[in-house]
């Protein structure tokens, strides 16, 4: 088991390195840099002005060198202007060049400086991630029990009217992407045109003070899309378990149906959904981006859109590092958990 985890962590690090390099490469293509220079400077910059702005920021070095600087394995670039002032990546505003460290990268714990928000990346990511964490927590609290209940109810009597209606429900939710269900929910529950106005159409106020009124719609929108998929997996797994020999034995013994479902079937039926739930995280990340944009909730997904839209290289890298780690760690947990829950599978 130790070896297995070690190997997985190694692959994880390699994947993270490759992915961040890919993001780095794409954001550092010259047209992107030009756009960055123009948004930071002004839009009518001449080509020479763009080049000198980029030169000053150290953007014109070869990509592998810049990437190594960002990682913190190579001393970072410094630019000395004609009047002798030195600027560089490591020299934060209001800091003397001589005091600044030579290496500043991820390895030194320095995530960079966001050009859009004009704040350190680590600060932005931690605050935004906390906001999204709150959203995700409620999504999980709604989605997982909901999906499991639907799946178990549908799977315990395959082909019954209950099964059919719940299956139709879960197919419908998997076919409704967040931007469709979100729009439908806002239209029905939040707009003045229908007039119900039960909930608020934006979740901006939920960032400080989340209430049922302003937070339920975004949570429901994300939860529904994932719910159908997990419910279908649970249903399939439950239906399979219900045909097993030991369930028949229990029935013949005279165990009551609720007891069979709760005590005999449920434990075995929940192994498969566990992996599915863990693997849902990457999809949830997508949902978060859409829903945060739709409901104007300024969390991690919203930050991603802002960073990508403005080619904020270091913020975008920070965002991708975090999301890639989330994805890979959940994959690891799902693998380990699967082995742990199902003794028939061994890693060796």
């Amino acid at each position, binding site marked *: 088991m130790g070896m297995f985890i070690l190997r997985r962590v190694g692959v994880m690090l390699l*994947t993270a390195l490759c992915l961040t390099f890919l*993001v780095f490469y794409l954001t550092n293509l010259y047209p992107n840099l*030009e756009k960055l220079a123009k948004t930071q400077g002004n839009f009518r910059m001449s080509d020479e002005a763009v080049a000198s702005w980029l030169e000053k920021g150290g953007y014109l070095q070869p990509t592998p060198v810049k990437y190594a600087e960002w990682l913190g394995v190579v001393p970072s670039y410094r630019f000395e202007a004609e009047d002798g002032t030195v600027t560089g990546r490591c020299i934060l505003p209001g800091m003397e060049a001589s005091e600044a460290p030579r290496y500043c990268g991820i390895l030194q714990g320095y995530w960079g400086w966001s050009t859009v928000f004009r704040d350190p990346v680590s600060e932005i990511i931690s605050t935004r991630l906390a906001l999204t964490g709150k959203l995700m927590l409620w999504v999980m609290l709604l989605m997982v029990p909901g999906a499991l209940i639907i799946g178990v109810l549908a799977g315990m009597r395959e082909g*019954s009217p*209950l099964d059919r209606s719940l299956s139709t429900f879960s197919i419908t939710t998997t076919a409704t992407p967040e931007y469709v269900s979100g729009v439908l929910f806002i239209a029905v529950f*939040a*707009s003045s*045109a229908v007039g119900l106005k039960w909930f608020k159409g934006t979740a901006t106020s939920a960032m400080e003070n989340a209430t049922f009124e302003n937070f339920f719609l975004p949570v429901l929108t994300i939860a529904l899309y994932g719910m159908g998929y997990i419910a279908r997996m649970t249903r399939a797994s439950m239906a399979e378990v219900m045909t097993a020999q030991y369930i028949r034995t229990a029935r013949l013994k005279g165990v009551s149906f609720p007891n069979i479902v709760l005590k005999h079937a449920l434990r075995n039926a929940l192994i498969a959904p566990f992996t599915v739930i863990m693997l849902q995280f990457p999809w949830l990340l997508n949902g978060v981006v859409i829903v945060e944009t739709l409901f104007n909730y300024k969390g991690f*997904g919203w930050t991603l859109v802002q960073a990508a839209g403005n080619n904020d290289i270091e913020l975008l890298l920070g965002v991708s590092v975090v999301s*890639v780690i989330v994805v890979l760690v959940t994959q690891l947990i799902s693998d380990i958990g699967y082995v742990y829950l199902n003794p028939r599978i061994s890693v060796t």
Partner: protein
Amino acid sequence: MEDLTWTGSLGTFLDPLLFVLVPLFALAVVARILLSFFEPDTGTQANPDGTLVATGGIWSLSARIMTWLGAALVVLVLLYVVLGVVMGTGAGILGGISQRLTPVWIALIVTFWVSIHFKRRLGLYGKLFDSTIGMIGFGLVMFWVFVAVFTGLFDWIATHDALSQVSGMKNKGPGIPLRGAEQGEYPYYLLGGDNLARDVFSRVIKGSTIVIAIAPLATLFAFMVGITLGLPAGYYGGKLDTLLSFLANLILAFPVILLFYLLVTPEIVLTGLPQYMGVVLFAFPLIFFGVLIQSRFRTQPEKNSLWLAIVLIPLFLAYMSLINEDGSKISFWPLDFFDINAGILVVFVSVVFVNSPTVFRIVRGLAMDIKTRDYVAAAQTRGERPWYIMLWEILPNARGPLIVDFCLRIGYTTILLGTLGFFGLGLPPESPDWGSTINEGRKLLSIYLHPALPPAIALLSLVLGLNLLADGLREESLRD
């Protein structure tokens, strides 16, 4: 002219019926679900002489009530459609829409009649018509396919141009007559006007052509890539498998939206990167068909070169015209038959790129499973080449799950295209595709519902149809 109501003159006698039937039907469904907790789930009882008798009691009563109410509802909806076709805008907005859709209704009826008539001779496709779910899904999908075809090829269904703006129609609700309509112009905005005074109905209809043109084709390309790489990875295993799986997991670990934001920007299009990716991705169909034919007819050189020529030469010409474009990074080929809009190309390439790793994983898993079967061992003993075994022994036997996944994946691609439109990536800003229209409509959602809802419902119904179709296919293919 007066504003149209939703159902017009039909409303006086059909609407009350609808308002009675819908709650009754809902009540019956709920009652049946609740009853299923207490009553045993058997509606029929087999007698020893081989006859069947329906068991009575409250259970079968609820089942019968539900069936009848459901049938009544279907008849009612059909009445709206049929009377709408006859009466046009006399039957309100729904009538007007129904009349515009007349070619679609006719095509649907013909398709269903022919398919049901010959269903025993049509293999898996015919079996689809044994399952209600599958038929509903197929109906929904074909509805949008016909809408897209008739709009795209003949320009039949849409009432107005998708881009033209008519003064005085900004944000007007459904069924408002067109101010100053000229002779020969459709006198109404059936579903109202959006915030730029364009016809919502026509935009939804025109939007379907974009989805129906891109989504299945992109999925097909993703399948070519996934199959061509997944079969050897699963069959050979070893280092090749490790490498390819690592690459696939790499792409899968990327949040899709981040990838889109990185790939689908005008700046990236300038660098020519999507075109280079296209060069690689679009080469896979060529490789696939080349190997497919070569492995089959290797021992018959004449047949081999004939088939290779028939298939590969057109494909090669299409490939070259596809990747070449005047005024971009790649333009060396003199025979450039068609130019694809750079925005559409980048959307297409990135959708294929995002989808292929998942297909790769599915194909790899199937190949690993099937290669242990006896018929594969028999082929190996016969001395068949590996590629023959992969493409002519393993692939045909993996077709069931692959067809089901193909349907699901078209739906997923539709969702991805909508996501791209929603974030305003790739497609031109005034494009009528559903994602962009939803994005435009959502800004005024708290006041005006009509610009955002029709595209949302359209996208929902198409994806739902594809999912139901996949479900029906899965059920029917498991049955044999």
